[in-house]
């Protein structure tokens, strides 16, 4: 068992919680502390834009673990006390309260914050963003009484909120500056399918249209003005235009940052005593060879486990995990395996009109990922294929008579045999 001394984790989201939990699961006996800006015990974030705001999930089920877990497992909590600076020479994290938390190894899991809408009226009451449980509780309350909602930004958060709001019977308009929805994340085929679906649910979708200003009365938002000259009535404006990595703490202490905290393939920052993981970290993508930053639960949890293992056991080697992601909108479950944005060829499997299909992405003939809508078996098979050695050709991907699962099972067997041969 490695002895990393006192391990301090800054950030109490998925990634930060995972480091602390995994360290103890791996039998790490040294002191572990978790520092968090939010006063609340670490909790699940995905339901906040889905089942939580619709009222289907109760507040008390969000926490990863009850309070007793942290005491029972010797995880010291510093919650509601933001980290202000890292004194690297002294090996101390200084908190807003004035407390200093000494570390031998530090893990930054500081996450992201919503990008602000820089237009007149963005500070009016009724203009909200969604990141934390506090934001979600506020949004849930506002959704109960709002009549007309404008969602600014056609990304995952915006569209998930739009789907819930529409299901609650509200008037909903989505305003997206780019010419298609989910433009950063999915293929044109899937973008188009989601536009059609939201429209079929009764949501108005305005593409290629940015927000000029938000107007209000008595300090409260009443309408959104768009750059193409429209005025859309809104007593609630939900801004979901992406997030920015919380890398100021790292930057302020002289660590290398560039739209995220820069880390090597073992997720170490430019200071070997400091690692960075999750949404805030920019790491070498094993699938692309480029520096990547992912905003997902999978990435947060897998990187948290990876760093915990390295610190607890001294394990060496690069971080390599197949990314996966999901989004629930209405009756549609979108699942993404791999990262499809670098595709030079996309192949459709199934028929979007059946509301169950996948788009497979290839680069130079090699499978790099798939976007599946209500097609969980395609998704799961893709994850197995991406992690294995059996190739999938574009022709096989498009052919519904090819059993992807059988092919994937073969991939797992080959991977297992290879591992055996290597050992």
């Amino acid at each position, binding site marked *: 068992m490695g002895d990393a001394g006192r391990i301090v984790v800054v950030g109490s989201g998925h990634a930060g919680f995972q480091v602390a939990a995994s360290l103890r*699961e791996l039998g790490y006996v040294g002191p572990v502390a978790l520092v968090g800006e939010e006063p609340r015990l670490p909790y*699940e974030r*995905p*339901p906040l834009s889905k089942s939580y705001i619709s009222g289907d999930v109760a507040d008390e*089920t969000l926490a*990863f*673990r*009850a309070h*007793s*877990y942290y005491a*029972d497992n010797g995880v010291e909590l510093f919650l509601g006390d933001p980290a202000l600076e890292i004194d690297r020479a002294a090996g101390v994290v200084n908190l807003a309260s004035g407390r200093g938390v000494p570390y031998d190894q530090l893990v930054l899991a500081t996450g992201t914050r919503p990008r602000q809408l820089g237009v007149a009226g963005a500070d009016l009451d009724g203009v909200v963003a969604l990141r934390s449980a506090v934001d979600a509780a506020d949004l849930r309350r506002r959704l109960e009484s709002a009549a007309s909602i404008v969602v600014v930004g056609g990304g995952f958060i915006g569209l998930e909120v739009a789907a819930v709001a529409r299901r609650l019977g509200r008037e909903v308009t989505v305003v997206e500056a780019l010419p298609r929805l989910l433009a950063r994340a999915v293929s044109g085929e899937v973008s188009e399918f989601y536009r059609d679906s939201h429209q079929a649910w009764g949501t108005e979708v305005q593409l290629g249209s940015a927000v000029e200003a938000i107007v209000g009365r008595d300090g409260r938002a009443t309408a959104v003005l768009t750059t193409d000259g429209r005025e859309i009535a809104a007593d609630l404006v939900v801004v979901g235009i992406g997030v920015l990595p919380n890398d100021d703490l790292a930057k302020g202490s002289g660590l290398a940052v560039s739209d995220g905290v820069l880390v090597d393939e073992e997720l170490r920052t430019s200071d070997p005593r400091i690692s960075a993981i999750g949404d805030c970290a920019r790491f070498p993508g094993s699938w692309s060879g480029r520096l990547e930053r992912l905003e997902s*639960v*999978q990435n947060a*949890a897998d990187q948290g*486990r990876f760093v915990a293992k390295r610190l607890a056991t001294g394990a060496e080697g690069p971080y390599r995990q197949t990314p*996966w992601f*999901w989004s*629930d909108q209405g009756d549609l479950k979108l*699942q993404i395996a791999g990262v499809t944005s670098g595709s030079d060829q996309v192949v459709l499997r199934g028929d979007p009109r059946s509301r169950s299909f996948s788009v497979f992405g290839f680069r130079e003939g090699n499978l790099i990922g798939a976007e599946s809508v209500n097609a*969980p*078996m395609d998704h*799961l*098979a893709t*994850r*197995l294929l991406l992690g294995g050695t059996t190739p999938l050709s574009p022709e096989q991907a498009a052919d519904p008579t090819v059993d992807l*699962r059988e092919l994937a*099972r073969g991939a*797992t067997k080959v991977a297992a045999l290879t591992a055996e041969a290597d050992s």
Partner: protein
Amino acid sequence: MSDSVPVTFVLADGERREVDAKVGESVMLAARSSDVPGIVATCGGSAMCATCHVYVAEPYAGGLPPVEPEEDGLLSFTVAERKANSRLSCQVVVTAELSGAEIHIPDAQV
């Protein structure tokens, strides 16, 4: 009718944890809210990750609703061996029939 039923989780090292599981919630949430170790549940119950794998002891396993294709697919991702009574605990809803059930937690989820 009682709103919760007793369920016993048997950890990989043989330790037994009896908890009150709320009828209507998932076995995964029942374990998590009682701090039963060994169930990871990375995705929080969205059927994405296969890290809440359990073995439901008979006769209870046979009385559960059958494994749906999605759960079946995810069960091919489990780290511990898949057995005939393997389930993803996020997909198993606590019912009165589960009262007294013994649910074994595998030695690894990730």
